[in-house]
């Protein structure tokens, strides 16, 4: 199934106003309904290497798998669509690659990356994420955050130490509790959500959400929804106008129409048997 007529995708990435190079990395494969965004960290150019490895490994591996298996097919083991396991396993693979590179090459020591990856299929989206790169959704005029950061700040908010309002002024916005490539093992958070035609999904690095209020992001998306490319550029520009302290990356995906999985009669029978 080719999703390029079902999903409209636009993206934009920028080093921002302060950093000299861009450690973010983005990839999108409209035909397979796959988008990946990674925000690398680590000295010198290692952050770029980590985020680049993450997006490349995950997209190429998932592309390969998709030639053999459909994401909506039910996994024998988990009894759930294979998409979830697919994302989880490819994230682990990327983790191993980055971790080994960091271990074997001194200049890459300590590199890592945050990640958000989305796979669209069967009127659904499977989202995997690590760290503080985020997924937002605009549905029927309502703009909301889908992923929850793996960050110290989020944990503090969850445990009631600080309020969301105080969090905006916190000093340690940058401390993530999970990331790709830092440890030999990683546990990505993977969830499925239903999609509706008209939904706009926003993947972004913390360079956007640290600089621009959610409210303003939602406003920009709503106002410029007619022109996704422009909306992506506008979001980056807003981050830069507010100071652009970090690299800014944005991927926007609009669901143009329904895309139920093409299940044949045999497929249905199989589904029942399982």
């Amino acid at each position, binding site marked *: 199934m080719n999703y390029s007529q079902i999903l409209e995708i636009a993206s934009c990435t920028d080093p921002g106003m302060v950093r000299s190079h861009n450690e973010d990395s983005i990839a999108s494969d409209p035909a397979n309904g796959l988008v990946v965004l990674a925000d690398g960290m680590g000295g010198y150019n290692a952050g770029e290497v980590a985020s680049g490895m993450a997006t490349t490994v995950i997209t190429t591996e998932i592309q390969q798998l998709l030639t053999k298996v459909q994401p909506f097919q039910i996994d024998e083991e988990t009894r759930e669509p294979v998409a979830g396991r697919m994302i989880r396993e490819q994230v682990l693979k990327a983790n191993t690659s980055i971790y080994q590179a960091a271990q074997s090459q001194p200049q890459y020591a300590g590199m890592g990356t945050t990640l958000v990856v989305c796979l669209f299929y069967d009127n659904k989206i499977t989202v995997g994420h690590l760290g503080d790169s985020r997924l937002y959704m605009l549905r029927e005029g309502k703009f909301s955050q889908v992923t929850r950061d793996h960050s110290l700040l989020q944990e503090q908010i969850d445990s009631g130490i600080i309020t969301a309002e105080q969090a905006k002024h916190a000093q340690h916005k940058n*401390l993530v509790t999970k990331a790709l490539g830092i440890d030999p093992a990683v546990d990505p958070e993977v969830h499925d959500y239903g999609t509706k035609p008209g939904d706009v999904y926003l993947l972004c690095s913390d360079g956007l959400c640290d600089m621009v209020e959610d409210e303003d992001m939602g406003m920009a998306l709503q*106002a410029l929804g007619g022109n996704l490319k422009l909306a992506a550029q506008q979001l980056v520009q807003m981050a830069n106008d507010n100071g652009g302290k970090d690299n800014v990356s944005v991927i926007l995906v609009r669901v143009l129409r329904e895309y139920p999985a093409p299940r044949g009669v045999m497929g249905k029978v199989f589904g029942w048997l399982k």
Partner: protein
Amino acid sequence: MAKLILSMDGLVLKEIPLSKERTTIGRKAHNDIQIDNLAVSGEHAVIVTILNDSFMEDLGSTNGTLVNGNPVKKHFLQNNDTIELGKYKLKFIQEAGAQPAAAAADFEKTMVLRPSAMKAAAEQAKAAGATGAAAAQAARQAALQAVGTAAQAAGIAEKPAAVHAAPPPPPPPPPAAAPAAAHAPAAAPHKPSQPLGAIQLLSGGNAGKELELAKPLTTLGKPGVQVAVLTRRPQGYFITHVEGAQRPTVNGQAIGSSPHALKDHDLVEIAGIKMEFFLKS
């Protein structure tokens, strides 16, 4: 920027800013700080400066290096430390105020907080007196707070804890007191100095009406027909074409696909409606 003040017998000889990552000290001419004295080795010591932290390392000198009177191999320099090489003294001066600013800059960088650090902090918190089942949650919370400060200290070039050992900031840092707040009030409100723009409709059913452009962006036009957006930026106001076959015109000229800067009293036409842009105040 930190600096060194070279002196001998209380006489100030030179002031050296630590502008380079490596500042070498020795008797030979190729050193950044040359001290031509036989008690000083050819390559005596080096000062490595990373961001706002400076480390002094003795390069295996014959007569050794003293910091505040103690012989050291490697030392994390702090304000007013005195390095001694033979009869020469180098006083390390860290400009006040530089440190918090640098720290704030560092905080922008994303760093990973390892679970091990969390555990260590949790244990610390437990050891600090949280006992009993009911205290477990408290310990966890304390850990989260402790790690916040601990990780800040640890994250930055392995600063000795002493540097940051100042009482941990209260969990809800008041916006004004937090160094980061001065640094990046995320989504800073638009500067009051920026003049407020507005448009006045000149044709159509609402002719004569005025619309203030106070929001970061305002869309105008008819969805599906022609839509343009007016963006408010630090540099001023811009108009950008969003959708529709026809592009908006500014003073009779259709705009391109990139944002077009608006000047006071520009005449704009969007979806057949004429309007004038002007700056208030």
